[in-house]
């Protein structure tokens, strides 16, 4: 027997879907921040965002990617504010007026880590370029981020200063992953890698790696920039400004200066030296 006319329940499905999508849609009180993987992997991004959300009532959507990708998205107006660590690339965006109001937020150091025993002997080097030259001379495995992140950019500039083209050598491998996972790979392969002090300290218990050399020439500086609302009228300018002000406010600076002290016995980031 056929049952009386029964329509497939298309309409309830459609309503449920629209409700789901509608309920998930964006609103004007959110701000999209593009941040680098090292900030996520060290945990400070989450803490800063939570404090800002409590203080301001704005909702933050972090997009975590390498500095190269973050700056590319910012130049297209797809983000509201950036938090990255590649000063030369940031300067290019400011010059092109895609972003405005660059403010240094915090810094730490680039550090060269490697397997126990320091087989390449990098610890006695005088500069990052010299340390990398020692890695190349020993043909010790080196895991590069290879993703145009701030760390990768710093690494490339040091190779250049050393007059070495590392690409194409079997000991030089490009991972294409974030700061934390890059260290996990380096640890697994007993390889050298360039990283930042914060990510290394947070992950060091899980790694078979030792920090041998701290870059004495260039601190690892994190800066925030607003995406220019004159060029990209769709940005959430007000919310982005509020976040920028928060990052350099007394409260923001206190969180940065204290971050990691309790758990790791030392702060993972320093406040920027006054401009």
């Amino acid at each position, binding site marked *: 027997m056929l049952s009386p006319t029964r329509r497939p329940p298309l309409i309830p499905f459609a309503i449920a879907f629209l409700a*789901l999508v509608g309920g998930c849609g964006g*609103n004007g009180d959110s701000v999209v921040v593009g941040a680098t*993987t090292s900030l996520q992997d060290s945990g400070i991004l989450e803490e800063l965002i939570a404090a800002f959300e409590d203080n301001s009532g704005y909702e933050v959507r*972090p997009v975590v990617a390498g500095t190269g990708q973050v700056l590319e998205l910012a130049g297209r107006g797809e983000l509201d504010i950036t938090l990255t660590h590649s000063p030369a690339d940031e300067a290019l965006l400011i010059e092109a007026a895609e972003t405005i109001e660059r403010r240094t937020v915090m810094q730490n150091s680039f550090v060269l880590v490697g397997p126990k025993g320091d087989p390449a002997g990098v610890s006695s080097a005088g500069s990052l370029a010299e340390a990398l030259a020692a890695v190349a001379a020993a043909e010790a495995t080196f895991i590069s981020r290879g993703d145009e992140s701030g760390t990768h950019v710093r690494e490339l500039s040091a190779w250049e200063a050393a007059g070495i083209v590392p690409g194409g050598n079997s000991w030089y491998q490009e991972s294409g992953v974030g700061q934390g*996972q890059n260290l996990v790979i380096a*640890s697994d392969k007993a390889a050298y890698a360039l990283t930042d002090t914060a990510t290394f300290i947070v992950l060091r218990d899980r790694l078979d790696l030792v920090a041998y050399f701290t870059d004495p020439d260039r601190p690892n500086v994190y800066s925030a920039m607003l995406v220019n609302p004159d060029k990209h009228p769709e940005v959430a300018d007000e919310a982005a400004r509020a976040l920028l002000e928060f990052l350099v406010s007394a409260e923001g600076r206190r969180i940065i200066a204290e971050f990691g002290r309790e758990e790791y016995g030392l702060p993972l980031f320093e406040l920027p030296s006054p401009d």
Partner: protein
Amino acid sequence: MDLIWDGITEAFRLIFTGDGYVFDITLLSLLVSGGATLVALVIGLTVASVLAFRAPPGRTMALSVFNAGMALPPVAVGLLVAIMLWRSGPLGQLHLLYTPGAIVAAQAVIATPVITAISAAGLQGVPPRLRLQVLALGASRWQAMLLLFREARLSLLAALIAGFGAAISEVGATMMVGGNIKGSTRTLTSAIVLEVQQGDFETAIALSFILLTVVFVVIGAFTAVQQRRPAS
């Protein structure tokens, strides 16, 4: 191997202590992938019915496209959906990027060809004269369709299972359009990726185990429905 046992132990601890974070991401995974599967089911069944019963010109070509669509690379889908949803993209006004709605859209794009292709194959397996006979016996078009769906029940549920499986196990597109935001767009799969990135393999294995359990329960329920004898 120790790591796997530790991970499974951790999974049980997370489940039985009612860990809020794990509960939230599990619920989000189910809602988002369930929503995407529903969307894909509505579109897929409609298209499959038209292809199977109406035999429009170019049917073989269309079926080839949907069959090939079962191998759509999720990362490519994610990239395309993300560009559509960019502020500068055609659907930017929806403000869906980095929200669960964006993940529903991306997963629906991935699941739709799967459901369409398998449903179409199943519906084509129903003897074509059956539809005409039922209509001749005075059934309305909806009644005829329901009856044919019932005939092709095994294939249609296989399509539903494959579509849901493709959606809930997906991570490339999910992260690209969702952004892996804690408390908003972090699903079980993207949480696993994050834990691996940060070297916390134990938690990653625990979450993987929870994902497998969820998939087994949901798909087990679908399979039970599929294998039930129809009430006569």
